[in-house]
């Protein structure tokens, strides 16, 4: 199996070579150009002539990893990742190590190394990419094990439903949740997931009614499920039954005092009823707890505005503006915009 090491190493290699010996340099260039046989020979020569040549040792291990000789590469990759004083080399070794562990089926260790990499290089796109891949592999492995060892379990249907949801196949997801409920009618969270899948699959009034029944069934199993209370509130609100909805939003907030969506829903309804004395402290608490919550700032801005506190309203507007317009190029903005009109919507 050919590993994707070269692309990661290319950009970093040349500056590091300024102080390197010429055989090492030739070996690294050969590695970058994909001439692995030549790279392996040159870098092995370099290591033989100077076993302390850190660049040569690292790139020899990378070459071995890239050509599928992970077993031979891994001791050096582990050593360089753990001990190298050169931050760039340690990063390269760590990335290659994660790939090798994955290739050898040791997903658990790959997850461990990926976690260490993330801790040391938290903003590194290559590291985050490898971490995402390895976690995905871990998820796949665990899923296969579950399907293999407990095929009749309700958990198989539950997980199938969740996977269908990620694929926007909400009808299929709902069918799986129904099977899971049939197998284990007392299991928590199944009715909730079913209710959500129904809502995501259809916008009809009938779907709202069906989903409401599922959330109510979830509450019958767990009367303290704040999320189910909230969902019922949202359905009633969408049906124009705002007074009843308010009761459920309040209940959700009572069950989970830090539930921001519930607090915002209660606050907004209070603002519409001109109950500013109750609404504003509630909304202020949400903003204090979640200073990056745009909805919270907007709701508070409207509450201040409607109650005549224009200066405070303008401050909230400014906070909202900052959140909605992060500095150009900020990655969070990119992610946020990716989310707009994305398949999940």
């Amino acid at each position, binding site marked *: 199996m050919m590993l994707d090491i070269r692309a990661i190493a290319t950009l970093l290699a040349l500056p590091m070579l300024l102080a390197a010996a010429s055989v090492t340099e030739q070996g690294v260039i050969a590695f970058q150009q994909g001439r692995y046989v030549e790279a392996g020979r040159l870098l092995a020569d370099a290591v033989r002539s100077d076993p302390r040549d850190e660049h040569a040792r690292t790139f020899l291990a990378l070459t071995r990893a890239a050509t599928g000789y992970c077993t031979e590469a891994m001791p050096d990759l582990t050593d360089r990742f753990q001990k190298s004083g050169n931050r760039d080399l340690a990063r390269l070794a760590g990335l290659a190590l994660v790939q090798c562990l994955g290739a050898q089926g040791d997903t658990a260790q790959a997850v461990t190394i990926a976690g260490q990499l993330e801790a040391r290089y938290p903003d590194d796109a290559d590291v985050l990419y490898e971490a995402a891949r390895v976690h995905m592999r871990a998820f796949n492995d665990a899923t296969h094990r579950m399907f293999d060892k407990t095929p009749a379990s309700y958990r198989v249907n539950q997980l199938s439903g969740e996977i269908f949801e990620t*694929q*926007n196949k909400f009808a299929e997801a709902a069918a799986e949740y129904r099977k899971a409920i049939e197998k284990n009618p007392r299991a928590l969270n199944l009715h909730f997931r079913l209710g959500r899948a129904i809502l995501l*699959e*259809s*916008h*009809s*009034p009938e779907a*709202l009614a069906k989903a409401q029944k599922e959330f109510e069934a979830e509450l019958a199993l767990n009367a303290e499920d704040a999320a189910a209370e909230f969902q019922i509130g949202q359905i009633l*609100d*969408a*049906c*124009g039954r*705002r007074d009843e909805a308010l009761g459920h939003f309040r209940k959700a907030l009572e069950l989970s005092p830090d539930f921001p969506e519930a607090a*915002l829903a209660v606050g*907004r309804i209070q603002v*519409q009823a001109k109950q500013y004395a109750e609404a504003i402290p509630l909304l202020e608490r949400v903003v204090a707890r979640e200073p990056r919550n*745009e*909805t919270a*700032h*907007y*709701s508070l*801005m*409207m509450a201040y*505005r*409607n109650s005549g506190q224009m200066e405070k*309203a*303008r401050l909230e*507007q400014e906070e*909202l*503006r900052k959140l909605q317009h992060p500095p150009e190029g900020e990655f969070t903005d990119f992610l946020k*915009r*990716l989310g*707009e*009109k*994305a*398949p999940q*919507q």
Partner: protein
Amino acid sequence: MRLLWATLAAALLAATQPGPDFHDIGKEAGLTASFPNGGDKTKAYIIETTGSGVAFIDYDNDGYLDIFVLSGDGGTNRMYHNDRNGHFIDVTAELGLTSSGWAEGVCAGDYDNDGYTDLFVTYWGQNRLYRNVSGKRFEDVTAKAHLTEDRVRYNTGCAFLDYDGDGHLDLFVANYLKFDFATTPKAGSNPYCFYRGMPVNCGPRGLPFDTNLLYHNKGDGTFEDVSERSGIAKANGHYSLAVIAQDVNGDGRPDIYVVGDQTPASLFINQGDGTFSEEAVMRGVAFDENGRELSGMGLTSADYNGDGRIGIFRSDFSDERSLLYRNDGAGQFDDVTMAAGLGHNTRFVNWGCAFLDFDNSGWKGLVVVTGHVYPEVDRQNIDIHFRDRAILYRNTGKGTFEDISERAGPAILARHSARGLAIGDIDNDGTLEILANNQNEPPSLWKQSRPAPGHWLLLTLIGTRSNRSAIGARVTVSAGGHTQVDEVHSGGSYLSQNDLRLHFGLGSAARADSIAVRWPSGQKTVLRDVAADRVVTIAEQP
């Protein structure tokens, strides 16, 4: 007590009369030509999705509404003359209106105050101003009027308005984005080119923004681009579509509200000195109640709850709510969508929309036409469709609406991928008709199978000191203890033009106690004890 009686009377009227029963009479009326607008199974570019508007306009002043329908590339815009016998005759060629290109929006107004209503048509490409020459033909005066654009623009909604009160209609033109076939990425080529996992045409996200335009009418047949000077061009970061010009804060000056696709809406407050200040966020009309920007397509405004203040409804994308904003009278709005019972129709992509009193109850209902932007969505077998039915809401008279789409006649349930919509009374019988532009189909013309039960008035306003079309004139009608307010608008809905006359349902009142007009000039006219069920012409005192 009178208000209570009026409400009770309206409720009784509604309870005893059958509901509306809309039928599509377009084909039998002569609207048989199809209007191309890009692909029907797939759309490669965003230009194919936005579609085109329609207009009800009485171009020859014979007192009967004619029909103007815009076309996408591959067809021509068409004007149909109303023969007063239920037929519309295609008079496009003889009026000089044969055209080509991607027509988007239309707005009407008498920009030269000669007594004949002119037309402005927006394009991806060069907009066109058509001067109405005595109701006999239209002359393309774009270049003469200094409205030639220096580059290709994706112009969308438009509205005539007299923002400086000089009696000459100025012109606002919304711009969607910067688009050209050569540089726009292909379907599926980046994250902005997917919908529900399917590769689809790219945009609007990922495509460059453009700015809106404001032209000042110099009164000599020419316009001057004042977009920069007026502050209109300062607002960037919007994919603007529909526009409506109206006085939102009661200061007698027209303001401008523009909805944007996937971007916040803009509200330009007229400062009275030739400039505008963009204040949509603080005034509560930029976002939904969560502070989230939606994909605004169309908009309409009305005194829907009888408080004398003009609220706004905007039509939005699927998986979003179309929003109703209540106006506090000072131009501050609250999103009352949920409280008004408008929160449940989230499966449609909504376009042309209009408040209309279809039963003459004195309370304006609401019609919305729909249709998804991606024909590919039909492959998903979900409840979102490229061609879909319309939505009709009845106004309960209590600030809420009831969805009566399923029992309002076959026309409402017929599936089209509609865009533009306009309302008007084609036969002056007091019962409103609805006109819609359907992508790659003939337009729909919906008529009720029986007259609306209540009494009514249709008001034709003629400005003298004010602009001749009386655009911006605000009318207050009191009848049977119920007071309604409306304003003469150019543009609105989705890139479309409603009848410039104002229609008022009066419920069981056979007479209006008073009709008060506040003209754009500031002058006021009051008529008292006016008999209902007729067209009334009101001219401003010279």
